[in-house]
């Protein structure tokens, strides 16, 4: 034990002499752990909140009964099933707006609520009588209450009409949800005697024993699902975040690897001396591993704290993205579980050990008596380069294989990962070739030395350059994808937002009044009725949209593919357009047939883009929709109005029917709102992108800092034969900038390949839509500039140190090292 401590003390003395190296190692560990654990914290937060939401309204944790044809059905079905011994409990749910915020109002029946859904217990812990008896209670998450700026006991109006029962904060509740008694829900939503679904409690009976119709309604049994709808819908988003976290983790490990590799090289003489003094290989190994684990623990802990800070900083954007994309609600404050801390530390230690494997193996095989100097670098480098090349080729083949045979989102990310790794591994080979070429054209001794020395520097710099390459490529890829999406989305919005004014009436009565009022005016070009309902196909929610027969749709609708007479056939009722997502999920193409419910099947006559919608969608003729789903609310319609009349019509509608901003909007407002949501959706991606680039910059900086010390023996002779320190510094700067430039140039095509992968593989799997691939040269140039600036910033500190170095330091090189 004493001996081990002595060995440890000897080894640790290295860090005392090279504090910068220690800092590098720790920075690597911290960067790796911080981003990874930050992303994990975000994911965990989101998942917990989905679970909370699901547990509360029953979600799909218990089996449920729905009417596939209608949003609601008579409560008589509940009574009939109870009286037949089925342990069902009614739920009425609808989206409502309170204080300008969209919330889910869920009416539950606490007395029959299955024990499996936590809601019954949550309500029961309060006061059941107060909850069900007038005036009742509205349970709300404390954070939502805060967001609304309301106090407990307040009775806000929903949708500017009915007053909610007094609000009561309930910590277990998911945010964005209002829980009221079913009777209260029916009253405030004006849905007397109607329910949205029946939750099925514990029973030994199954779907097959359910009667054909219950109280005149054909109910569909939806089996419980381990995963909630939200969890499934948002999976791709979280996978995206995870991929980014993993990338930063890898980039961080690059730093760790380079720092440990360097330390090993420098400690070789020490290790050999220790071995010669009789320290066994085993003891040496154990001590080195222990040292590494200790450092990893320190770095991991600091990384976790940084990760927490990052997650807390990103949470508002992530929450906004999830709300915009999926309507998922996330609480505003991070709550972390002990599991997260443990996993973060484990990742840090595991990563450090993995990054140190090569060094550890080399140390274990260290021959006792071989010379203490490094091998002839040329030979070693050639072997290293050919190994890198071979590995790169293998990775490339793997990427191709996964691309050919993989068919999942995970496979898409695997292709990306393999491709990036292949490119990173091939980078030194390519750089070496480029420098060799340059060396051939070199004239003069200094120039020849310049190129040769650049090549000699490669192994030390290559990991940092790889990190830079990866970060840049991912930046180019994601940037291109987001810009492509943005362009496509804007064009698509123009097509989809065909009407000039959008009206959403509070109820059917008001809708009828508005229509009558509009018909009497002469400044209205046309009234385009709209209707929308939701069904389930293959267990997943699908929207059905009713489209009126009007030329503006035929002219503008963003069809991707369509049969020649598609519009006519659609308006005859027997055909439908399907959204791209739905067409991919159900493998539907033009000419296929789709069964909507028992008595309605349609031919698919077209596929249209429906970006940003997590649910599949069908567009059918509006009259056909209302024929098959007569209860579909008809409260929304679009108006075609000449541009000069828009303001007047808006003002008149607002005044006459007291419509607010949510119920009445012109096209420009809707468009601006959509773009705002879109931009926020990718805010997180952009933030993570920047972080990754920052980590790569740090990697480059730390590599250069560590190299600068060890490279003095190479530079000192040049100084001795007459080159000024300033000149030497300039040469060093040029060299690094040259390799960084080559790396950045290589990153551009690689980035475009990454973008293609994202657009053609990952996006389709994640969201179900494919974007046209576009290249944005200005953006590429900008990134190139950013990369060069980053490289310059990373190169400057060591170069400045060299330029200002005391001659005595340079002279000492000759005394010490050689």
């Amino acid at each position, binding site marked *: 034990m004493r001996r081990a401590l002595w060995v440890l003390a000897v080894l640790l003395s290295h860090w005392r002499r090279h504090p910068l190296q220690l800092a590098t190692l720790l920075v690597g560990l911290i960067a790796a752990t911080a981003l990874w654990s930050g992303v994990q914290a975000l994911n965990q937060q989101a998942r917990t909140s989905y679970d909370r939401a699901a547990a509360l309204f029953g979600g799909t944790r218990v089996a449920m009964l729905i009417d596939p044809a209608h949003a609601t059905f008579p409560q008589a079905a509940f009574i009939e099933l109870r009286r037949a*011994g089925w342990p069902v409990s009614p739920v009425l749910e609808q989206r409502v707006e309170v204080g300008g915020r969209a919330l889910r109002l869920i009416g539950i029946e606490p007395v*029959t609520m299955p024990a499996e859904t936590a809601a019954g217990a949550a309500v029961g812990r309060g006061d059941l009588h107060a909850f069900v008896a007038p005036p009742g209670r509205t349970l709300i998450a404390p954070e939502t209450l805060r967001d609304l700026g309301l106090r407990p006991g307040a009775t806000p109006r929903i949708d500017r009409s009915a007053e909610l029962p007094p609000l009561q904060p309930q910590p277990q509740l998911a945010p964005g949800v209002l829980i009221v008694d079913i009777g209260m829900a029916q009253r405030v939503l004006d849905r007397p005697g109607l329910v949205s679904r029946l939750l099925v409690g514990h029973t030994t009976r199954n779907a097959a024993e359910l009667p054909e119709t219950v109280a005149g309604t054909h109910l569909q049994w939806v089996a419980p699902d381990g995963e909630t709808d939200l969890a499934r819908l948002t999976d791709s988003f979280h996978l995206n975040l995870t991929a980014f976290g993993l990338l930063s983790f890898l980039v961080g490990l690059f730093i760790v690897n380079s720092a440990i590799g360097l330390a090993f090289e420098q400690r070789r003489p020490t290790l050999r001396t220790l071995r010669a003094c009789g320290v066994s290989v085993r003891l040496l190994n154990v001590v080195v591993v222990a040292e590494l684990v200790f450092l990893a623990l320190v770095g991991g802990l600091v990384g976790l704290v940084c990760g927490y800070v990052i997650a807390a900083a990103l949470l508002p954007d992530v929450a906004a993205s999830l709300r915009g994309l999926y309507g998922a609600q996330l609480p505003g404050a991070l709550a972390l579980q002990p599991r997260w801390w443990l996993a973060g530390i484990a990742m840090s230690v595991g990563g450090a050990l993995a990054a140190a494997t090569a060094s550890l193996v080399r140390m274990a095989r260290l021959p006792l008596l071989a010379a203490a100097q490094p091998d002839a670098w040329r030979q070693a480098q050639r072997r290293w380069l050919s190994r890198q090349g071979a590995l790169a080729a293998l990775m490339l083949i793997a990427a191709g294989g996964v691309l050919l045979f993989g068919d999942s989102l995970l496979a898409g990310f695997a292709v990306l990962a393999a491709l990036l790794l292949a490119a990173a591994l091939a980078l030194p080979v390519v750089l070496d070739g480029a420098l060799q070429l340059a060396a051939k054209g070199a004239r003069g001794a200094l120039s020849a030395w310049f190129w040769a020395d650049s090549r000699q520097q490669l192994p030390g710099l290559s990991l940092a350059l790889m990190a830079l390459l990866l970060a840049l490529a991912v930046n180019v890829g994601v940037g291109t994808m987001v810009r492509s999406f943005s362009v496509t989305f804007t064009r698509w919005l123009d097509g989809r937002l065909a009407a000039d004014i959008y009206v959403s009436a509070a109820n059917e009565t008001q809708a009828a009044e508005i229509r009558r009022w509009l018909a009497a005016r002469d400044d209205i070009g046309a009234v385009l009725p709209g209707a929308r309902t939701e069904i389930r196909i293959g267990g997943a929610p699908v929207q059905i949209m009713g489209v009126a027969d009007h030329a503006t749709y035929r002219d503008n609708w963003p069809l991707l593919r369509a049969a020649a007479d598609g519009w006519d056939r659609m308006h005859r009722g027997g055909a439908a357009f399907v959204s791209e997502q739905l067409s991919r999920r159900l493998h539907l193409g033009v000419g296929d047939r789709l069964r909507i419910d028992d008595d309605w099947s349609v031919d698919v006559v077209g596929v249209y883009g429906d970006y940003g919608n997590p649910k599949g969608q069908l567009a059918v003729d509006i009259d056909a929709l209302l024929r098959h789903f007569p209860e579909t609310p008809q409260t929304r319609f679009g108006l075609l109005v000449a541009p000069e009349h828009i303001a007047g019509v808006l003002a008149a509608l607002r005044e006459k029917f007291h419509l607010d901003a949510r119920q009445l909007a012109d096209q420009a407002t809707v468009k601006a709102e959509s773009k705002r949501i879109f931009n926020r959706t990718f805010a997180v991606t952009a933030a993570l992108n920047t972080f990754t680039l920052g980590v790569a910059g740090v990697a480059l900086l730390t590599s250069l800092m560590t190299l600068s010390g060890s490279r003095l023996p190479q530079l000192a002779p040049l100084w001795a034969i007459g080159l000024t320190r300033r000149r030497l510094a300039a040469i060093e700067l040029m060299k690094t900038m040259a390799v960084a430039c080559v790396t950045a140039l290589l990153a551009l095509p690689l980035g475009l390949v990454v973008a293609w992968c994202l657009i053609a593989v990952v996006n389709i799997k994640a969201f179900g839509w494919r974007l046209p691939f576009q290249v944005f040269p200005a953006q590429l140039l900008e990134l190139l500039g950013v990369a060069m600036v980053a490289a310059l910033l990373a190169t400057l500190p060591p170069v400045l140190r060299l330029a200002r170095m005391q001659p005595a330091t340079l002279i000492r090189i000759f005394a010490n090292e050689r």
Partner: protein
Amino acid sequence: MNADRGMSRRGFVAGLAWLGLGARAAAQGFAGLGGAAAGFAAVTPGRKFAFPDDFGAHPDFRIEWWYVTANLRDAGGAAYGVQWTLFRQATAPGPQREGWANQQIWMGHAAVTGAATHRFNETFARGGVGQAGVDVAPFEAWIDAWRMAALPPLSNETFAPLRLQAAGEGFGYDLRLDADRPLVLQGDHGYSRKSERGQASYYYSQPWFTATGRIVLDGRAIAVSGPAWLDREWSSQPLAADQTGWDWLSLHLDGGDKVMLFRLRQADGGHYFAGNWIGRDGRSVPLPSDAIEMTPRGFTEVAGRRLPTQWRVEVASHGLAVDAAPLNPRSWMATSFPYWEGPIAVHGSHDGVGYLEMTGYPVTG
């Protein structure tokens, strides 16, 4: 749901909170029966009972139940017990509110007991929407699929014939109840006093039911028959605040006489006794408090409680001195309001069968 251990562990204090009575009510006697009755109708002596109206619910009173127990035997002579109970409780006084706003909460309990098995279940419902309720004509009392319904024509004298049904996991029954003698008013012409301070309930019984039909126990269908007993009771504050629970029993004696006895336990260790002797001629005589002796003779540890499952029962005025023993000492109803309820047999001066109910025993240790 059946024998839900999580439910029983929560105990009845949680159960009270769940029903909105608040944990304070726990201190006011079992299931809040000793709570204040402000705003509800009061129970007073001298009420004239009228049938079929009094078959139905009395929503102005806070609490009410329809309670059937049956002592059954199969063809081989093996004994079984059946319980069917519908409780109604009003959470607020005043006019009945429509639909979901209705203030009535209904609770159903059902059980089948064999010598070695006891299967039970409970269910809850809110009034006003049809999940549970009581219709007078044609008579039907129901909660979910459990029902007690007239097999027309229903006699207003005998409250028969009825069909009694319930099922849960591991048990079920479908019985026909017939009676050849009229209903019996308990206490003083249906006014059943529960304490010295005036707490009381309206209480009538049909002890003359004969049940025939089928029970199902753990998947086995068994043809059975035997005497059954209906209790109808309603009140607004049946227990005094310091009464912690009761021991109640009904007896079908071999000679044809029927006996109902109960002992209300007080917090100070004292007891309030009451009962009626119903002769084979149908005459119901209230028993004076000091004529009744009920002495625990044997205990069973059930659900963390020490319950007196064996009794010495004496009614000196009628020469009754018997030992009562349970068919299954573990007839524990681990429902939201847990209690012991099961068939018993008596031997001694008289032989016979009956039902024992014990409520409000605290968890020991």
